[in-house]
């Protein structure tokens, strides 16, 4: 039972940075913009969060700085991709590489210096329930925030007029423009939301999960978040499921290794990727339903006519 609880909680925590970054990218892609630079934005968030922490700011503000840094870096992408209408793939890849460099520069003085991590919070009454309390009510604030963001993103996309507008712009920016929506302005907002969430995901790694800065510490999580959005067929629920599946498989393969399963560690290490892709492809098999969720104008530059 203890082992199960430990796997469960480790999964939830391991999935949190993925959920944050992927939910951000989901909104970006739903608006018809493809930002491949998540990895770079996460690194920038992670580095600026640590920088702010060592500048003496309280933890809450360090997280805010990380979000702002992620947003600022996404603005760079926005200017290139939306204002100057460059190729979105190229601009996103450039941001990924740029972010790795900038974050290395910002973090230069703090390499492998321990950070006072954000601690889990206890919810009075609930956290003391045996097993359940440990499984559900003993996380740091950002884990709960990721749940809140999942609810907020789902509600926004499918229950609000603004969400409908966003989706319409992703489907057909020309029609949305024709009935008077500011396509570029709304896409900018979406891109900045994505940047902020990626920055937050990065800060989760450097301030909470492994509280220290090391170069390239995201270790590919930005790319996994990107893949989750695509394989989940642009559905928030599946993004979260995919992230949990990926996190859970990572933990399980480590458990398997530590138990001495007679499978080479290289094969076990690849399991999370395989399992996540297979499951998400299987549940996204209905082509018609998928076509409905796919933002048709994805990665196409929009030039307002008239």
């Amino acid at each position, binding site marked *: 039972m203890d*082992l199960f609880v430990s796997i469960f909680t480790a999964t939830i925590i391991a999935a949190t940075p993925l959920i944050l970054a992927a939910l951000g990218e989901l909104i970006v892609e739903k608006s018809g913009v493809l930002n491949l630079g998540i990895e770079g934005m996460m690194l920038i968030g992670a580095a600026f969060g640590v920088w702010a922490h060592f500048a003496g700011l309280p933890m809450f503000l360090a997280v805010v700085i990380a979000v702002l840094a992620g947003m600022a870096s996404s603005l760079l992408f926005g200017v290139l991709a939306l204002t100057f209408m460059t190729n979105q793939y190229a601009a996103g890849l450039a941001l990924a590489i740029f972010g790795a460099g900038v974050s290395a520069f910002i973090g230069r003085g703090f390499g492998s210096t321990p950070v006072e991590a954000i601690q889990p919070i206890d919810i009075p009454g609930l956290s003391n329930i045996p097993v359940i309390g440990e499984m559900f009510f003993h996380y740091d604030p950002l884990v709960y925030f990721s749940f809140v963001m999942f609810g907020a993103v789902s509600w926004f996309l499918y229950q609000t007029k603004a969400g409908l507008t966003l989706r319409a712009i992703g489907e057909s920016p020309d029609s949305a423009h024709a009935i008077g929506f500011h396509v570029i302005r709304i896409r900018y907002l979406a891109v900045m939301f994505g940047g902020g969430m990626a920055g937050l995901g990065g800060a989760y790694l450097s301030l909470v999960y*492994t509280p220290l800065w090391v170069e390239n*510490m995201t270790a590919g999580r930005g790319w996994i978040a990107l893949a989750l959005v695509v394989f989940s067929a642009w559905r928030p629920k599946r993004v979260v499921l995919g992230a949990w599946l990926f996190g859970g498989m990572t933990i399980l393969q480590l458990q398997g290794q530590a138990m001495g399963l007679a499978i080479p560690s290289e094969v076990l290490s690849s399991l999370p990727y395989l399992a996540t892709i297979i499951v998400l492809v299987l549940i996204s098999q209905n082509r018609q339903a998928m076509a409905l969720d796919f933002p048709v104008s994805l990665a196409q530059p929009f030039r307002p006519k008239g």
Partner: protein
Amino acid sequence: MKRATRREMLKYGAAAGLASGLTTWPGMGRAADTLKVGAVYVSPVSEIGWTKQHSLGVEAIQAEFGDKVEVTVIDNIFRPQDAERVFRELAGAGNDLVFGTSFSHGTPMQKVAPRFPETKFEHCSGIKHLKNLGTFEAKYFEGTYLAGVTAGHASKSAKIGFIGGFPIPDIVGPANALLLGAQSVNPDVTCNVIFLNSWFDPGKEKEAAKTLIAQGCDVICSMTDTATGVQVAGENDAWSIGYASDMSKFAEGKQLTAFTLNWAPVYVRAANSVAAGNWTSTEQWLGLADDVVQMAPYNPELPADVITAAEKAQADIVSGALHPFGGEVKDQSGQVRVKEGETLPIADIRGINWFVEGMIGNLG
């Protein structure tokens, strides 16, 4: 306006290449008696870790030679394809001695060295030698054996957890020695092993450490390039063993000891012999006796007799009375690999691809 000739283009191109690749390029002019030393690191120098220990070696050369040495350091060069260009530039710029600090620097150094016979190359973790390319490596297993002695005492559950970057002999050997050291104290100790298949993924390392702790391990030893393993152990009230640098400030008082790497003697010796003109290509495998592997201060919470036992083991390894891979050593399947009274030959340790009895893990 004059049209640029091809020759000029080449010149400018080379200048741009130098400017972009070598930010810390020193002045080109130098006195004839100045030794020029170049070093290539895999990552930037941070507070702790692999590259930090190499930077201390370079600093030792600077301390020894003062203004008689000119040092060029290039960091963050891991991939062989980048490394080849950097080594060629360092040699081309007239460095007398060039250090490579990663196994991945091996192939590029082997390519570059024959073209610059005047430059001496020293390669850490290297295998292949050339006339002007020597190698050096630490006997990590001597350090893990001593750490194992303390772990054997400290572990209440008789379960140690080991996290390695990759299943390669340089990791498998030390993991084996860790358990052999622990078993020398308590024969019932076992060791669960996880390979991350990455040198550098703090997130995954944390998950691995938590996994090992969840499975009952109460001592964690992590041979990667971050302090995460030590940090997670401290958070979860488990003991830890640091690698490369003393990691006690990450450990919340729970670091038993650390086996640290002191490359300074290697660096200074190489610089001295190049300066004296009598450098030859050697294969150095150095350990406790050479002060290349050192033990960080033992945790004050360890009982005095445990520290004495570890110190005695250290003295015996130095004197040769004790060999971490001294028989009898059985492998995972119970087959005897080293007979009573024998020791595992050096070549077999450097190429070790099997786990000793009591290891719980798989090498595929």
